[in-house]
C-alpha cells in the first residue's frame, strides 16, 4: 500500500498545521502527558470536533467520572450530552469499582467487545482510550500487560479507526514496563508538557514521531482557551505572508516625504528609542491618521493604561478618544506578568480576529521580556507578527532601548529580517541641551532619506524641522541656531567683501580709463599713432636712425 496516509483533522486551531493535516486514520496516536497537561481535553476535543464534523467517536476513560468530563467540557461550551443522545458520541466509564473483588486472571476483552459493537452500531471513525495505564495496573505481570496491549492494538488496527491512547508517564521518572510498548504501538506520538518557568506557566506540545508523515518538529505552545485547545505553530512562518501593500501615511507629511510616501500597508515597522524619545507619539500619530481615514487600529499596550496613554498623547495634540468612541480604535492593555506568553498571544489573536484591525501597535516589545524571558518574548512576537503578516495587517513594534545596545536589541535575527521599516528615535546632546533626532534605518520596498533629522514634540505633535547639515552631522537646537547665525554673518561679510571688491574694481577701471585717455590725448598732440606699440625711448631714436 503506497497510497498517502489518510488523516483525520483534529479541528483544533493550529494543531492540524503542526500535524500537516491531522492524526492518522486507521492508526494509533499516543499522547503522553503529565497530570494537568490537557491530554484528556485534547483527546476529547478530537472526538467532539470530529463528531460535529460528521465523524462519530467513542471515548473510553479509566480515570475520571464521565459526569466530570461532561461538566468540564460544558464550561467550554461543548454540549456532549446532545451528541451522546444523537449517537454521534459515546462515553464509556471503564473504571473498575473499588469494591470489586479480584479472583484469578482476566482480560480487557469486555472493553473491546463494547468498543467493537458500539463502533459498528454508530459508524464510529474515531476512538479515544484515556488513561490506559490506570487499568493496566490491575495486571500482575508485565507479560499480562503486553498481552492486553497487543489485543488492543490488534483490534484498533483491524477496526480502522483513528485512535488516541493517552498515557501519563510514570511520576518517579523511571520508565514503566510498558512505556516502550506504547511507543512502538503509536504511529504518531505527541508529548504534552505543562511547566512553570519564572512563575509563569507554559504548555508545550511536541510531535515525537509520525510514521509516514512530515510534521512540525519544534516545541509548540498551546493554551486552553474559553472554547478549547489552541496550538501555535511557528513552522509556517513566512509561507502565507501577504505581500506589502500600498503606501500609507505616517500621519506626518514631512515624515511621509522622507519615506517616499509613508509606510507600506501590511509592513512591520519598528520604532526604537530611549524612554521619552517619542515612540508612542509617533505611533499615536499613525494610529490617529489611520482612524481618520476610516481604518481600524488595535493598540496593544504593556506600559501604560488606556486612559494614561490617551491623556499623554493628547498633550501632543493627538486625540484618540473620538476614534475609540467610533469604534475604529481598540486597546488591549495588560501587564506582561499578568499571564503567560501563550495567553497573551491568544488573547491578542482573538482580538485581531474579532476586531479585524488594519493596523496593530505593540507598545512595547521590550516589555515582553517580562512575560518570562527573552525566548518567550521572542516567540510571542514572532507568532503575533506572523499572524498579522498573514492577514495583511500593518504591525508597528515599539522598542524601548536601554542606551548602549543596538536598535533591534530585543528582536534577534529572525525578527530583524521581518522588519520592513525601522526608525530610530534618539537624543542628540550638544551645547548644554538635548534635542531629538530620528533616522530611517531601513525601509523595504521604497527609497527613503537616510539623513538624520531633528524633530520636536510640540502641541501639534511630531514636527520635523528643516535639515541642517554642519560638518559631518546634523545640527540641532542651539547648535543649529548658532550655525544659522554664523552663516548669516558670514554671508553678510561676504556680500560686503563683494561690494568692496566691486568698488575696487570700479576704482581700477576708472584709473585705467584715465590712463587711456591721457595716452590718446598725448598722441593727438604729437601726431603719433595711438595704436599701442612699444614706444621708442626718445634718447635712443636718433642713434638708430
Amino acid at each position: 500500500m503506497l497510497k498517502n496516509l489518510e488523516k483525520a483533522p483534529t479541528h483544533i486551531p493550529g494543531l492540524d498545521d503542526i500535524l500537516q493535516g491531522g492524526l492518522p486514520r486507521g492508526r494509533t496516536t499516543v499522547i503522553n502527558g503529565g497530570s494537568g497537561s490537557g491530554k484528556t481535553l485534547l483527546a476529547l476535543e478530537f472526538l467532539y470536533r470530529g463528531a460535529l464534523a460528521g465523524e462519530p467517536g467513542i471515548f473510553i476513560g479509566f480515570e475520571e467520572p464521565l459526569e466530570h468530563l461532561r461538566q468540564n467540557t460544558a464550561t467550554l461550551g461543548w454540549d456532549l450530552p446532545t451528541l451522546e443522545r444523537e449517537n454521534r458520541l459515546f462515553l464509556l466509564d471503564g473504571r473498575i469499582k473499588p469494591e470489586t473483588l479480584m479472583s484469578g486472571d482476566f482480560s480487557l476483552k469486555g472493553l473491546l467487545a463494547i468498543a467493537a459493537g458500539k463502533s459498528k452500531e454508530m459508524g464510529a471513525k474515531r476512538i479515544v482510550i484515556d488513561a490506559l495505564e490506570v487499568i493496566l495496573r490491575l495486571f500482575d505481570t508485565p507479560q499480562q500487560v503486553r498481552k492486553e496491549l497487543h489485543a488492543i492494538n490488534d483490534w484498533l488496527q483491524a477496526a480502522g479507526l483513528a485512535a488516541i491512547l493517552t498515557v501519563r508517564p510514570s511520576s518517579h521518572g523511571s520508565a514503566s514496563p510498558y512505556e516502550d510498548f506504547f511507543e512502538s504501538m503509536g504511529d504518531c506520538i505527541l508529548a504534552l508538557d505543562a511547566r512553570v518557568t519564572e512563575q509563569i506557566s507554559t504548555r508545550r506540545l511536541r510531535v515525537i514521531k509520525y510514521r509516514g508523515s512530515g510534521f512540525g518538529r519544534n516545541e509548540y505552545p498551546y493554551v486552553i482557551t474559553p472554547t478549547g485547545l489552541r496550538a501555535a505553530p511557528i513552522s509556517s512562518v513566512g509561507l502565507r505572508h501577504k505581500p506589502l501593500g500600498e503606501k500609507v501615511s505616517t500621519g506626518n507629511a514631512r515624515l511621509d516625504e522622507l519615506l517616499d510616501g509613508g509606510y507600506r500597508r501590511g509592513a512591520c515597522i519598528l520604532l526604537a528609542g530611549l524612554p521619552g524619545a517619542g515612540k508612542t507619539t509617533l505611533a499615536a500619530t499613525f494610529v490617529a491618521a489611520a482612524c481618520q481615514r476610516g481604518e481600524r487600529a488595535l493598540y496593544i499596550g504593556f506600559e501604560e493604561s488606556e486612559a494614561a496613554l490617551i491623556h499623554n498623547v493628547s498633550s501632543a495634540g493627538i486625540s484618540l478618544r473620538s476614534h475609540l468612541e467610533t469604534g475604529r480604535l481598540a486597546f488591549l492593555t495588560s501587564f506582561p506578568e499578568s499571564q503567560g506568553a501563550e495567553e497573551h498571544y491568544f488573547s491578542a489573536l482573538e482580538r485581531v480576529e474579532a476586531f479585524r484591525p488594519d493596523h496593530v501597535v505593540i507598545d512595547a516589545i521590550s516589555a515582553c521580556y517580562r512575560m518570562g524571558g527573552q525566548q518567550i518574548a521572542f516567540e510571542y512576537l514572532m507568532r503575533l507578527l506572523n499572524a498579522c503578516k498573514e492577514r495583511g495587517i500593518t504591525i508597528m513594534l515599539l522598542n524601548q532601548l536601554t542606551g548602549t545596545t543596538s536598535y533591534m536589541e530585543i528582536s534577534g535575527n529572525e525578527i530583524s529580517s521581518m522588519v520592513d521599516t525601522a526608525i530610530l528615535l534618539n537624543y542628540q546632546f550638544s551645547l548644554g541641551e538635548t534635542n531629538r533626532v530620528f533616522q530611517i534605518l531601513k525601509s523595504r520596498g521604497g527609497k527613503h532619506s537616510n539623513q538624520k533629522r531633528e524633530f520636536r514634540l510640540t502641541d501639534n505633535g511630531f514636527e520635523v524641522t528643516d535639515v541642517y547639515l554642519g560638518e559631518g552631522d546634523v545640527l540641532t537646537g542651539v547648535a543649529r541656531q548658532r550655525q544659522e547665525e554664523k552663516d548669516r554673518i558670514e554671508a553678510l561679510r561676504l556680500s560686503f567683501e563683494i561690494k568692496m571688491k566691486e568698488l575696487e574694481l570700479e576704482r581700477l577701471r576708472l584709473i585705467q580709463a584715465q590712463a587711456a585717455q591721457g595716452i590718446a590725448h598725448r598722441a593727438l598732440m604729437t601726431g603719433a599713432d595711438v595704436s599701442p606699440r612699444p614706444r621708442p625711448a626718445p634718447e635712443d631714436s636718433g642713434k638708430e636712425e
Partner: protein
Amino acid sequence: MTTKTLPSAMNDPRENMPFYRLRLFVAGDEPNSLKAKAVLSRLCNERLKERCEIRIVDVFEDYQAAIDYGISVVPALIVESPLPMRTIVGSLNATDKVLAALGLVEKEGDYE
C-alpha cells in the same frame, strides 16, 4: 448477614438460604471465561443447590449488557441478589474469595 449463622443455614438450605441471582460475563471461549464458567457451575451444584440462577452473557454477542452493567474486564461475575450487588472479576480460581463474596465461607462448618 454474619458468618456465624451460615453453617446452620447450610444444614437446612430451604429455611434461611437466600436465592442467588448470578450473571457471568464471558468473552466467547477464551480460557479464563471457560474456567470461570466451570468454577461457577461446580459451585452452584455443590454449595447453592437449586437456590441459584446463572445467566451467562457473552460480551461479543451482547455488548449492550456489558455497557449496562459497566463490564470492562472479563470474566466478571455479578451477584445481583441477594443485595448488595457485588462484582467479582477473574477466572474465579480463588474459590474462598468467591465464596466469601457470596456470603458462603468455606470450611466454616468444620470448626463446629
